[in-house]
């Protein structure tokens, strides 16, 4: 990483396009200061510390760079540097997520899990146990097993499709991306390695997930451990069984919020588009695909402007359609319920509604 980042600094010709494209708040940052702060031994000024922890690693800065430099990695490296200097700061997002917490942290994690298990009894068996029975499909919700509504919906759809599947979820199956995003590279690596072992117990052929961060972790694990299984988003998986779903029209039109990772980073934005076209008509926003905006979930700096930015995004969507669909569960949770003027849906809701509608008609 260090080597690549220094190469990136050399590539940078100072055109400022990355910061033009960057959606998070920054105060008077010049490329000169930013590049200097990115170098291994230099000190990081306060305005750049603030910016770095605001950086959501959305990658919007990447496709605009004429020199082919990776500003996202450069900023990530600053986080890494800062974390190494002051471990323990900016911990909020990884407080209870980790695969082998110890001591007090472990207790907190356990307590939370027990609470969730009591609250959602139907899902308790998936909160932390590792499936070992061989099944073709592994549905990996990781920590968002704690978002029962989405999990139940996904399970309903998987049941309908009928292929046997396992579920791997719980805080102790963390994918490691939260750590990666704040520059805890070693912890991220460790979590991914542990996850790799847990996935392998049931030797799946396909691993599916609805979360863009988990998706990224899976891609990284696959590349590192040269695993055989395919990685699909839940939407991609459902599309492979599209013929089973009733053809109904659910909304006059729908607009789509692309995920930073699934669409921009991995160029897998086709599935949600096809899914929308199955049940409605897709209208694209100006800031879509590579230009998509962030949901700001990973804004570690807890920037006060996040909600304002989200609302701006919803406004853009409202100009296109009455409904905004999200492909990534993280984005969905950040946007839903924020603005009464627009309906925000998880894209799986379309499949579910289609089933319900047909069920009702029968």
């Amino acid at each position, binding site marked *: 990483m260090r080597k*690549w980042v220094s*190469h*990136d600094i*050399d*590539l940078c*010709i*100072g*055109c*400022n*396009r990355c910061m*033009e494209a960057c959606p998070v708040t920054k105060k008077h940052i*010049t*490329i*000169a*200061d930013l590049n*200097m702060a990115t170098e291994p*031994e230099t000190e990081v000024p306060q305005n750049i510390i603030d910016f770095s922890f605001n950086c959501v690693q959305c990658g919007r800065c*990447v*496709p*605009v760079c*004429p*020199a*082919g*430099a*990776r500003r996202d990695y450069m900023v990530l490296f600053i986080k890494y540097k800062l974390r190494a200097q002051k471990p323990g700061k900016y911990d909020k997002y990884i407080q209870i997520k980790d695969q082998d917490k110890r001591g007090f942290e472990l207790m907190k994690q356990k307590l939370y899990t027990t609470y969730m298990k009591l609250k959602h009894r139907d899902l308790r068996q998936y909160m932390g146990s590792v499936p070992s029975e061989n099944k073709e499909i592994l549905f990996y919700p990781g920590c968002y097993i704690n978002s029962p509504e989405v999990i139940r919906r996904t399970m309903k759809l998987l049941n309908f499709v009928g292929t046997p599947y396992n579920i791997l979820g719980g805080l102790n199956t963390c994918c490691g991306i939260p750590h990666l995003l704040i520059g805890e590279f070693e912890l991220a690596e460790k979590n991914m390695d542990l996850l790799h072992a847990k996935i392998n117990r049931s030797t799946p052929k396909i691993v599916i997930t609805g979360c863009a961060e988990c998706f990224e972790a899976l*891609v*990284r694990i696959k*590349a*590192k451990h040269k695993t055989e299984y395919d990685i699909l988003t839940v939407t991609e998986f459902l599309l492979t069984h599209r013929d089973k779903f009733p053809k109904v029209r659910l909304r006059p039109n729908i607009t789509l919020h692309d995920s930073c990772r699934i669409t921009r*980073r*991995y*160029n*897998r934005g086709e599935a949600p588009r096809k899914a929308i076209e199955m049940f409605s008509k897709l209208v694209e926003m100006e800031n879509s695909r*590579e230009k998509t905006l962030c949901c700001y979930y990973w804004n570690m700096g807890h920037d006060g402007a996040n909600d304002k930015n989200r609302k701006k995004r919803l406004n853009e969507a409202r100009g296109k359609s009455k409904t905004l669909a999200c492909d990534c569960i993280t984005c969905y949770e950040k946007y839903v319920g924020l603005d009464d003027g627009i309906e925000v849906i998880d894209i799986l809701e379309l499949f579910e509604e289609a089933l319900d509608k047909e069920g009702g008609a029968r």
Partner: protein
Amino acid sequence: MKYMIIGGGCAGIEAAREIRRRDSEVKIIIIDDSGDSFIFRPALKEYLMGAIRKEELRGLPAGFFIDKRIEFLKGTVTSLDADKTLITVKENGKDTVKNYDKLLLAHGGRPNLPPYLGDRDLKNVFQFKSLGDAESIKSHLKTSKGRCMVIGGGVLGVETAELLSRMDHNVTLLSRSENLVFRGIPKRLRQRVRNLFEKNGVAILMCKMVTDIEISGDRLTGLVLDDGNLLEMDMLIACTGISPNLNLAAEAGLEISKGIHVDRTMRTSRENVFAAGDCVVLDWSSRKILRLWEPSRRMGRIAGANMTGANEVFDPYPSFYHTYLFDVPLGFFGDFDTPGEDYDRVTRKTDDGYRELVIKNNRLVGASFMGGRPSPPPFLHLMKSGKKIRGGFRQLLDDDFDIERLWYQ
């Protein structure tokens, strides 16, 4: 120990930083004649367009020179005596002679002017190298309505033409040869670049010679071409390449040809004299001339290290260039043009895109592309490491190839 650096461009500054990194005591002096210490020179294009402010052009944080205890001298070095280790500096009209222990020539190059312009002082003819040039062009453009001629089909020529066209000026690009962007550009790619420009309203004239010029007062008003046509214009920007500054090196008896000769460690033919950046030529490499930002910076760093006694070598490979023209990515990597014998080319064409890989002995040695979702670092990584990818290189041509994957291999 006294380290003297001529030229405060990216090569000179990187060298100075590297020397300071390795030795906190020595005296470091940079002499530069431009006054605008270390700007992001390539970002002059953004500045011209009004996308960034002057302060943002600065490539170094405020207080850098004081912080690093680097002396910055505004002056022109007019003479070099390598036997006596002396240089002559013209400061405020006065000549002073200074001695050095180690010297770095990082004084870049001068833009060429087309010979048919002679040495007349024409008010609407511009070069594009310095901040001053950018300012003059900018102020002329404010009132300019007619045709902007851009001369030269190289990197700077096409980028300048694109920029002016995006600023809604009427642009014609004139190239003497049949090459565009780079010499050796694949023919089909060249055609697509041409189409792209024409689609955006820029006329491109290739393989045309200028036989005469028309002048009115102190303004150039037209170029007469070898086909007899007259091109009328309101202004002309010459992007006809950079010639390395060689007079100092010649005077001191250094080996020179199309640049100052340096070995892999950036040493010249004279002891204690190093050179880096746009002013050098690598006569030992198949990529002899790399007048680009990134290699200049790296050369500077290596020169700096070796001036303090290290023995690091510069690796010119794989060189690459990447940019956006009208939002379409365009990239050239390594030996995209002349890889020698025994190589394969695999190509993929779309209506407005083009990708080509050059493979030699199962190794990716070059690539050129337009369109798609490229990400240069992984390409470079593949070329440098000589690694293969599972499923073969051909996948790199696919739209949905997950280029990120290469990072984790």
